[in-house]
């Protein structure tokens, strides 16, 4: 379970751009939940992910993961239990290394990075079996440098890599936003499959309202640092695109977009 309690955060303190953004923000995410977060630009969606992962500091409040207060923990320490996929496909993989090398370092997460050989030829078959279902032909390119792959191929690889080792939470930060519609569809299907297979507690930030409705069992709409919509379970299943769009229009007019 993941809890954000009484989060306070001011951006650019002491400047003319000072913005007291999160005021007593609270959020609880249950184990096994698949939460979609939507909202316009600057609504605080990605900031929530950054607060959870420790990429930005908060002024006060606490972040609690599985009952443990991790507010003071550094980002890389939190990462041990979190898999994260970024909007930019370049962030989740290492371009100068081959697919095999990339999968090998991801596979070793949580273990020691010592002076033993980095790649293990016995694992190649296993990796190929993971790559083959993607239908992107990556299983025949194990020795290709990842920098030579397309954005979609890299993102698929990044998604696989982030879920290769046991993790408690999967954080998806607009992970389909930089892809063409067809590739985005493939990545979303892979996401759905991985989340169901591995029973991952997932938080997905997206601009695609259709994905937000189609996937997951809870939908949150953010606006100026507040959750102005939070539906789950049966209510979420009944939710229609029209309703979400209307709500979206409402806040957009309000903020002059």
């Amino acid at each position, binding site marked *: 379970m993941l809890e954000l309690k009484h989060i306070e955060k001011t951006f650019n303190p002491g400047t003319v751009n000072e913005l007291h953004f999160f005021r007593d923000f609270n959020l609880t995410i249950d184990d096994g939940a698949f939460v979609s977060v939507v909202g316009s630009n600057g609504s605080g969606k990605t900031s929530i992910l950054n607060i959870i992962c420790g990429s930005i500091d908060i002024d006060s409040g606490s972040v609690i993961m599985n009952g443990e207060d991790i507010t003071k923990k*550094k*980002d*890389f*320490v939190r*990462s*041990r239990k*979190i*898999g*994260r996929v*970024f909007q930019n496909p*370049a*962030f*989740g*993989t*290492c*371009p*100068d*290394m081959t697919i095999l*090398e990339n999968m*090998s*370092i*991801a596979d*070793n*997460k*949580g273990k*020691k*990075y*010592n*002076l*033993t*050989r*980095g*790649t293990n030829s016995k694992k190649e078959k296993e990796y190929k079996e993971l790559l083959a279902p993607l239908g992107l032909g990556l299983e025949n390119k194990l020795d290709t440098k990842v920098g030579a792959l397309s954005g979609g191929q890299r993102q698929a690889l990044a998604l696989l890599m*982030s879920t290769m080792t046991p993790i408690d939470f999967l954080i998806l930060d607009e992970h389909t936003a930089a892809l063409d519609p067809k590739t985005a569809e493939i990545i979303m299907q892979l996401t759905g499959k991985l989340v169901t297979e591995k029973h991952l507690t997932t938080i997905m930030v997206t601009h695609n309202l259709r994905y937000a409705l189609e996937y997951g069992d809870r939908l949150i709409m953010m606006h100026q640092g507040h959750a102005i919509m939070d539906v789950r379970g049966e209510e979420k299943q009944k939710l229609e695109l029209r309703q979400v769009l209307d709500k979206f229009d409402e806040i957009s007019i309000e903020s002059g977009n």
Partner: protein
Amino acid sequence: MALLISVLEQGFIYAVMALGIYITYKILDFPDLTVDGSFPLGAAIAAVMISNGVPAIVTLPVTFLAGAAAGALTGLIHVKLHVRDLLSGIIMMTALYTVNLRIMGKANIPLYTSKTIFDNDFSNSVFGVFGDFETTIILLIILIVVKLILDWYLKTKNGFILRAVGSNDKLVTSLGIDKGTVKILGLSIANGLCTMAGCLYAQEQRYSDVSMGTGTMVIGLASVIIGTSLFKKSKFVNVTTAVIIGSVIYKACVAIAVHFLKNADDMKLITSVLFLIILVISMDKKRKVASEDA
């Protein structure tokens, strides 16, 4: 002949340093100026040890460790005190000047009569048959050992993480590893190699001078850039070999330039002009590739 020997000897010595620069510049993407101080650090330590009768072979591990400590300090300044990469190196480089002076006790130490790693009873009996090439052969052996160890290291799990930090540090954080620690480690290895190169240089030249480090960074960068751009597409020459060849080519260019200008005082100017030419040529290549992609 003397020119060829001198080019090979210097090329091999500076190749050890260039392998270090390869780690900081290419792998870590860290412009590390510490090397201008750690190279003469190696020379200073070697000179003092050898003139006090310590066996020459001992100077290699000792200077590597001293350099690694200097590199670690640069890393700590950058990572823990959040000083910018370039400035961290400059701070260490400046501090090392005094350290080197204190180690030597004076501005320079000649080693004309001391037993060096290239001129001692053992080396003369084993490698004496090579005549004038004795030093070159010994250097080549040391260089190959260093290269093979580095090749092996870059293929280990630890080496993978070092490579990943330079190309995508977000991934390293995602893997639950402190990228700062990895950077410090990389700077240690790199400066260890540079210091070892300084140790070899002092023994080959038979003197150590406190100011001999000026321009080390430029020479290393030039070697790395020549090597990696020449052999970018080659499948048979791996990157560490490319850097070594780059270093020899660079030293040959400098030797030819000095030969025609007949004045060794122009060395540093030639160094920087050559480096500028190399930089511009390699950038031109990149631009062409980029426009082909578009």
